[in-house]
């Protein structure tokens, strides 16, 4: 398995340009996520999807759009790029693990792609 792949690895955009960050996973995971990581900070959730055709906003969705037409692909669209969108973008996918014990529950181990480093100037 290739796991989670992202393209491109690096991109420089001019202010006002648009682009799509691609994310593909071959693990048949239902859940997929987009995060951004600003320098020296943790990751912030942009959008997530619980299955094909279903998406929802995370912490920082403004300026981005997503779609999920297949289980494998979860592209992130930037319209009218702004310098504040300069960041490293990570895509992730997960599936539910069932814990053992008297009261089993589900947890979701996330698998991350290598990231896309985006600069908007």
């Amino acid at each position, binding site marked *: 398995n290739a796991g989670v792949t992202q393209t491109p690895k690096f991109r420089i955009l001019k202010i006002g340009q648009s682009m799509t960050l691609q994310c593909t996973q071959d693990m048949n995971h239902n859940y997929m996520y987009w995060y951004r990581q600003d320098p020296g900070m*943790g*990751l912030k959730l942009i959008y997530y999807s619980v299955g094909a055709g279903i998406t929802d906003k995370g912490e920082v969705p403004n300026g981005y759009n997503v779609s999920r037409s297949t289980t494998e692909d979860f592209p992130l669209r930037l319209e009218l790029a702004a310098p504040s969108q300069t960041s490293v973008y990570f895509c992730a996918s997960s599936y539910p693990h069932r814990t053992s014990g008297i009261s089993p529950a589900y947890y*979701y181990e996330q698998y*991350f792609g290598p990231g896309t480093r985006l600069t908007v100037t």
Partner: protein
Amino acid sequence: GIQVEQSPPDLILQEGANSTLRCNFSDSVNNLQWFHQNPWGQLINLFYIPSGTKQNGRLSATTVATERYSLLYISSSQTTDSGVYFCAVEQGTGGFKTIFGAGTRLFVKA
């Protein structure tokens, strides 16, 4: 929303030393994970540990959910342990809306 604070923010160790990283969270959580981001940016899931203790080789983690903190122990540190360690929590049960702390940056000197 829930706050996740990690300490220390930066840590420099001599190879072979032990260390403890801490994660405090401001509300009850259903899920807590520790991640390692290596110097090349790749994120690796270390532990899923909403409560209790787990060990994996030189790493172990303990979460005391009632007191809202988790600890990551690194023993006999190696240069390959360098990178950033993130704590991430989830309040709901749906497997999404994970909140990350700002991380602890670890540098292990040879």
